């Protein structure tokens, strides 16, 4: 299992802990297509981390099955399974006594790669996560900032080029600015690597930003809804999902789209603040409100007016 990406499929997976009446995960069925990011979100106690750890068998499945690229995780040797899955956790868990290079080379060494191949791979990955190899290779984890540690954690998880990655609130402990930067780095890396990623977060905004699809779990490990961010925001399946998305889900929906995607009305002497086409609809709405205007002028790259968007258009989008 290496290179490319592979589909992850949960088939009626249940996890029951001995001595507990309610299962932690109940009959979970969902498929993450190869090369997509699936965010698992939900309140605490919804079993999102449990569901993720069933994939690399850090927790054993009670009933049902999970397949990766069609192969049941239960049929594989557990250490071999784990070495073929990238694993990133919130606290990173770098080995404090090993240099950055040795940390990143952990799985390649376990797999018996020759030294030169491991070393070349380490340099390649450090460059990928934007840590210049010459500067960072020999450092110890204690010499890194929180953001740098998680970059190394990501490089370490990618080392053996696994088709599947599990990420457990990887950016949850970072400050907002570092978190935003790493979220975009992940998306940039994903745009070239196209791994299948199961990404656990409790932050719905992070899920909307990162996920190709989002699985919302409710207490007791029941899947409430599994859909693309747009579909969730436009059509929450029930009251629970709507509440979880928040009262501002209309704004979140607007944040997913840009002015370029709209058909513009002709200028017709309309007035209002100006914004270029890459502005999100959420920011466009904000501009109208702060300017006290019911319309906004969309500008092209040279600052010339291309057309107009009105408040009515934004209000009617979710129809």
């Amino acid at each position: 299992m290496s290179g490319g990406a592979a589909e992850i499929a949960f088939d009626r997976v249940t996890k029951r802990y001995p001595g507990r009446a309610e299962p932690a995960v109940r009959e979970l069925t969902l498929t993450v297509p190869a090369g997509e990011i699936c965010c698992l979100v939900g309140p605490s106690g919804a079993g999102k981390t449990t569901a993720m750890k069933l994939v690399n068998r850090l927790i054993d499945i009670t009933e049902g099955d999970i397949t990766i690229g069609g192969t049941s995780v239960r049929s594989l040797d557990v250490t071999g399974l784990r070495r073929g899955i990238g694993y990133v956790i919130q606290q990173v868990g770098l080995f404090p006594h090993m240099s950055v290079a040795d940390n990143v080379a952990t799985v390649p060494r376990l797999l018996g790669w020759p030294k030169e191949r491991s070393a070349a791979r380490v340099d390649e990955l450090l460059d990928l996560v934007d840590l210049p190899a010459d500067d960072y290779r020999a450092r110890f984890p204690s010499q890194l900032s929180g953001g740098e540690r998680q970059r190394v954690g990501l490089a370490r998880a990618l080392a053996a080029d696994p088709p599947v990655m599990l990420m457990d609130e990887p950016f949850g402990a970072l400050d907002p600015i570092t978190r935003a930067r790493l979220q975009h780095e992940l998306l940039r890396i994903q745009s070239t690597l196209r791994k299948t990623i199961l990404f656990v977060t409790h932050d719905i905004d992070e899920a909307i930003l990162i996920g190709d699809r989002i699985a919302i779990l409710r207490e007791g490990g029941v899947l409430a809804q599994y859909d693309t961010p747009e579909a969730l925001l436009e059509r929450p399946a029930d009251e629970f999902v709507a509440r979880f998305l928040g009262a501002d889900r209309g704004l979140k929906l607007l944040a997913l789209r840009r002015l370029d995607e709209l058909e513009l009305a002709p200028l017709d002497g309309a007035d209002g603040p100006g914004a270029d086409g890459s502005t999100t609809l959420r920011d466009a709405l904000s501009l109208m409100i702060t300017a006290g205007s019911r319309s906004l002028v969309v500008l092209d790259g040279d600052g010339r007016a291309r057309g107009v968007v009105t408040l009515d258009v934004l209000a009617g989008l979710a129809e």
Partner: protein
Amino acid sequence: MSGPLAQTQPGEPVIPDFGEGSECVVENRLFCPDWVRDNWSGVLQPALLEHVKLTLIAVAIGFAIALAAALVTHRFRLAEKPFVAFSAVVYTIPSLALFQLLVPVTGLTVTTVEVALVGYTLLILYRNVLEGLRGVPADVLEAARGMGLTRRQTLWRVELPLAVPAIMAGLRVAVVSTIALATVAALVIPEGLGYPIFLALREAFKTEIIVAGALAVGLALAADALLVLAERALTPWARARRTA
């Protein structure tokens, strides 16, 4: 002046016989460099080497037992209480009493001495090894498991290396206290730095007591310094701090 003069009875010779020697030795002054020079290769150096040997053997065996016990305990928690109880009881027995208990079994031999010395190292070494193994952060262990390290690989590549500072701290205490305790071995066998002290005490010969005692202290300091250097060499990561 206290000592032999104060204890002598009327009629006995007032000055004990310190044999042939310089004026300094005959008068039993506080410190006689010439005696040290004359007796270095015949008395002091052999005693020092024996002392080193007694200590090394005791700490090596003690460490092997403590490490094995700590590894067992790390895997099976139930083993902790009996081992702590046993080693703590041994630790509390006064050394003189322990020698007395052992002599009928093992006789006036090196074995008697080593069994006692090993016994005293167990508690500190066991506790420190175990504390070191248990001090490994949970996130590090989870990452190790998640990446597919086996239990054995986790132990050798992650847990033991990270336990080195705690283990070295235990070794330092064990070595220094064993060097001090090994002087008592002279009650059982004529070996180690305790033996010249033991002989000199009978005659209250000051130079020999002072020099042998100073050698024991110096040996302890030197051993401790060596262990500190060894720890630094083994754990470059522990001293690495943010440079940025």
